[in-house]
Every structure is written in C-alpha cells, then in structure tokens.
C-alpha cells in the first residue's frame, strides 16, 4: 500500500518509477500484480480522438463604450453569449456562417492557439449600462482575459464501432461508412485509454490533475452521457497554456467540424488492485459494432467485438472480412502517455487524489418525446396502383383523375415492382412506349409504415424525389407518402 503523498515525495526527490500503460502490461505479465504494485508508482495513460463536446469560455474584456454582447461571432463562427456581457462559449462543432463545414469552432480555437488574429463581431440591443450595439475588431489569444477550455464530455472509456448495411455511403460522426458493410470505424484507444485503466474510478475523479491539450488541466466531474463502462469525463484547462500539437481542428465530411483533443491521465499505483486494472488488455475490452444504416436511436448491434480485433485492422461480418479504420490516433495517444511520464519524472507534474468520486454507474436515457409520428399516420391509403401490363394512356388517366403524380406499379399479389410518375409519362409521350412496364422505374425507394416521418423526409431529400411508396414486410404497397404530406407536419 502506498499513499499519494509518498508518490509525490518520490516525484520531488526524483526517485519515482513511472511507466506508460503500454509498458505496464508487460511489467505485470512479467512480475505479477504484487511485485508490479511495489515496483511501479505511476502509470500514465493517453488518448487522442475527435471529441465533439469540447469548447472554450472566453472573456474578451470591455470595449469603450461597453457592449453587452447578445450575439458574437469569431471568424463568422457563432459563440454562445447567454451569460455575462463579454463572456462567451465557443463550441468546436459550431459551423462558420460563410464557410460551412470547412471551418468551425475547432478551427477558431486552433487558429488562436497558433497565434493568429481572429475577427470578433458582436451585436447587442443596448442598455443604459451597455450602450454600444455593435462591434467589429480583431483579437488574439493574448488579448483576451481568459480562454478557459471546459469540455462537457471527453475521454470516452470505450465507444461503439460503426458499420453500414445500407446501399448508400453514409457521412457520419464516425467517419465515412461505405455501403453494404464496406468498412468499420471505431473510436478510442482501448488499453491505453485513461478510464479503462481505472474502471472503478478510484483515482480518476473530481479534482484529478491531468494533461489536457499539452497543459495541466483538471477533471471537474463525470461527463455528459456518462454510462459506465462507457464512462466520460468533464474537464477544464487553460487554453493559453496549451500546445496546438495536442489540439487539432478536424472536419468529418458531411457531418461537420470537431476537434482532436489530447488527454493524458496519471494513475497512482496505490495497491495491487490498481496494478491489476492498469494491466488491462485490448482483448478484455469489448464494445459493439452497430449499424448506422438504420437511422434510428436504437441502431442494431451487428456483433460484439474487442479492441484487439478492431486494432488488427480487420473484423469479420457475416462471414466476410471487413477493413477497419480507427478514428483516434494511437500514435498520438502513446506520445501523450510518454510525454506525461517525462513531465512526472522531471518533477513538473504532481499527482492528486480526487476530492470526490465520479459515479461508477450511470444510465443513458433516451429523450422524452411527446410522440414519434410515423409514416402510417400521414400516408395516403389505400394506395392507388397500376399493373405492369396497363397502357401508358391508362396510367395517365389515373394520374389526372386522382390528381396524383406517383403511381406504384404492383404485380398480381400487390407487391411493388416499379413506379411511374407524371414525368415518366411525359417522357414516354416524347420517346414512345406502350406499356407501363416499358417506362416504369424499377429500383424504387420505399418507406415502411412504422418509419418516423423524419426518416421518410430524409430519404426524399437525399434521393431528390417527392414521394415514396409505403411497403410492408411482405413487399405489398399499403400507401404512398409524399413530401407535401410531410411538409404539413415538419417545421421548416
């Protein structure tokens, strides 16, 4: 048994034994827990991944005459100002109003950190104490009074891996997912990740001093969505002391901006249990591969997988080998663990015990919603359909008489085999054609009666179409849902 005071004394004396979590696995397998606990004083961990819940509180100082900023933009990226007059919070995923996904809050933070000037623009309603209504100026990191990084959710212990069963490329916060299980992506660095090395959260808690973006930072509590073993941390640190090497702006195409954040956490080896927990291996860390092809909250789990398999670069799905991409940088995580080790050895970084533990249990509840409106409740039903052998004249007559633009084509059993639109009819008249089956579109994009209406709307958006036949499990057409049906319901 050791105390944190003893370990800090050794750090000050220069006699401390610090190893990285990678080295610790080897030491424990060589010496066993008991001996390793005696030999090793501190194990350093690290992670470097895209962490969307990241941002910075700024205090810009007061202008003359002063302004109570109602809205503020830094390089056209809006920051939250619903706090005191010249305080604002800039989140990394906020997009530029002029450059969109190319530039976001993360890029502003990185630019400031690299010493660049940033345009500050603010508007206000004007008060007796804050008469100014508008300001445009340039600021640098040096100019602002404070730039305090406060990240509500960082350092995920582990995370669900992603794949895509659908027939379309998906652009997600888990990167680009190729169709038909074309690839798998995962986040986190497994056995090197801080929380996996202290899964009981005995030494990682409120007040723990950490490495954050190259500077000293602190854990201020459990993070949002903290749900062990998918634990998360809320952290803070001084942006002015950070290093752009460990904070990097990123864009995930089609999703938006985010920031790679480097975090390192030292774990004091107080006893054998901590020696044991820091010996955790990738093969012991299990997560799920989930299917982003299903755009619902409860995405289906394709299979369970260990970080060892994910790191091998290939996993098997439905008997096929699928290539895997990490989204976190193991190389940078390792560098951070090594850098933190160096700083402790040099006596620059002392360890702390938490002033309060973070919960070792947690529940991740879904949002309370009034109701989830589904396609069934808004579709036109029964569907007006036509057979493949009908003539184009018959089809056009139905379209006109019923005042519709989309006519699903069904076989004798009512199963969908195509669709004809008024545009197809116009083309048929121009080019010739006799029967419906000559001109119908055979690859039809459909909706299910239980799909939420937002899913149907997104399908129409992505495919640039204005209606979907609604098809049940047996392939029978039970209705048609049009963009007009949906626009009445969805707020624009």
């Amino acid at each position, binding site marked *: 048994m050791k105390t944190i005071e003893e370990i800090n004394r050794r750090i000050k004396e220069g006699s401390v034994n610090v190893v990285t979590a990678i080295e610790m696995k080897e030491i424990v397998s060589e010496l066993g827990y008991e001996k390793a606990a005696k030999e090793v004083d501190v194990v350093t961990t690290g992670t470097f991944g895209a962490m969307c819940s990241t941002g910075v509180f700024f205090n810009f100082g007061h202008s003359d005459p002063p302004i109570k900023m109602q809205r503020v933009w830094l390089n056209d990226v809006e920051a939250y100002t619903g706090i005191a007059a010249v305080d604002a919070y800039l989140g990394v995923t906020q997009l530029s109003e002029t450059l969109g996904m190319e530039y976001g809050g993360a890029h502003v933070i990185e630019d400031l950190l690299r010493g660049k000037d940033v345009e500050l623009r603010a508007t206000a309603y004007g008060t007796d104490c804050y008469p100014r209504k508008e300001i445009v100026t340039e600021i640098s990191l040096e100019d602002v009074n404070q730039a305090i990084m406060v990240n509500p959710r960082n350092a995920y212990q582990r995370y669900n891996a992603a794949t895509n069963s659908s027939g379309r490329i998906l652009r997600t916060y888990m*990167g680009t997912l*190729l169709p038909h299980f074309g690839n798998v*992506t995962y986040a986190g660095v497994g056995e090197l990740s801080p929380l996996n090395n202290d899964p009981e959260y005995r030494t990682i808690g409120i007040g723990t001093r950490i490495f954050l973006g190259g500077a000293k930072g602190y854990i201020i509590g459990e993070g949002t969505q903290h749900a062990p073993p998918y634990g998360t941390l809320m952290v803070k640190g001084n942006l002015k002391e950070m290093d752009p090497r460990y904070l990097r702006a990123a864009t995930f*195409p089609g999703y938006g901006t985010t920031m790679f954040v480097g975090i390192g956490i030292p774990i004091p080896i107080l006893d054998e249990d901590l020696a044991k927990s820091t010996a955790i291996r990738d093969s012991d860390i299990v997560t799920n591969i989930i299917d982003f092809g299903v755009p619902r909250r409860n995405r289906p789990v394709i299979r369970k997988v260990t970080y060892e398999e994910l790191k091998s670069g290939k996993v098997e799905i439905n008997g096929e080998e*699928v290539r895997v*991409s990490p*989204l*976190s940088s193991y*190389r940078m995580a390792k560098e951070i663990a090594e850098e933190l080790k160096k700083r402790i050895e040099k006596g620059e970084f002392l360890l702390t015990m938490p002033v309060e533990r973070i919960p070792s249990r947690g529940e991740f509840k879904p949002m309370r919603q009034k109701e989830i409106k589904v396609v069934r409740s808004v579709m036109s039903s029964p569907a007006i359909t036509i057979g493949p052998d009908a003539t184009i004249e018959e089809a056009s007559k139905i379209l006109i008489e019923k005042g519709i633009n989309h006519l699903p084509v069904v076989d004798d059993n009512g199963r969908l085999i195509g669709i004809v639109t008024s545009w197809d009819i116009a083309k048929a008249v121009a080019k010739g054609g006799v029967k419906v089956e000559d001109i119908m579109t055979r690859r039809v994009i459909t909706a299910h009666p239980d799909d939420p209406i937002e899913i149907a709307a997104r399908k129409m958006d992505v495919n640039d179409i204005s209606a979907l036949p609604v098809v049940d499990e047996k392939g029978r057409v039970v209705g048609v849902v049009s963009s007009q049906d949906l626009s009445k319901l969805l707020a624009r």
Partner: protein
Amino acid sequence: MLLELIYDSKVVKEPILTRVAIEENTLLNIIEAKVSAREGKIVVELEDEIADRIERKFTEYGVKVRRLERGVEKKDTCVDCGACISICPVGVFSFDKEFRLVADSSKCMRCGTCVTICPVKALSLPE
C-alpha cells in the same frame, strides 16, 4: 504507370483507346474516364516498360498524353488517426510498427476518396 489521355473535339469520337490496345496487343486498365462531346479525359494504367511506345502511339492518333504521378502525398499535419485506411479501395494505407500512417503509393489509383475524407486535410494528389 498512369497516363492521362486528353482528347480534343476532333478525336473525341474516335475509338482510339481500343485501337491502340489492339494494334499494340496490350492491356490498358481504365482508372478514370470523363468523355463529353467536345473533349475527354481518360486515365489508364499500364506496364512501365511499354509506356514510351504507347505514349507515342496515342500522340500519333492526336491524343495528348500526360504522365501522372502515382500516389497520394501526406503532409506532416497528419495525426495518424487512420480514417483513410478502410475507405481506400486498393489498400494504400497502413500503420507501421510505431502506429504511424504509411502510404504505399505504388498501389494508388488516384480516386481521391482519401483526400476528401481526411479529417485534418493532410492528404493530396500530386498534379
């Protein structure tokens, strides 16, 4: 080797690519093709040894030829995340022992997918 064949409005309608392949009795792997009424561009892959001969032949038939650099270029802004590894159709990217990202440029087909998905814009195709 990769050759970019640039067709102008005079030759764009001629089946020059197959003509060259037949006459020279060789295989040309089409990597990319964009042919419109007035002009066109086709990128073909072929054995290095026959490149000179094939290039001459295309030039004779009025097609402009440009040799393309193979392979992606990686800037040192790369953070070695590996997002590119699984989306590359030909497996250009992998990690070395130190978990640094390495690119085997000889495999690259210049599809450009990695360039668009790199979160820190560290990849580019040489002109």
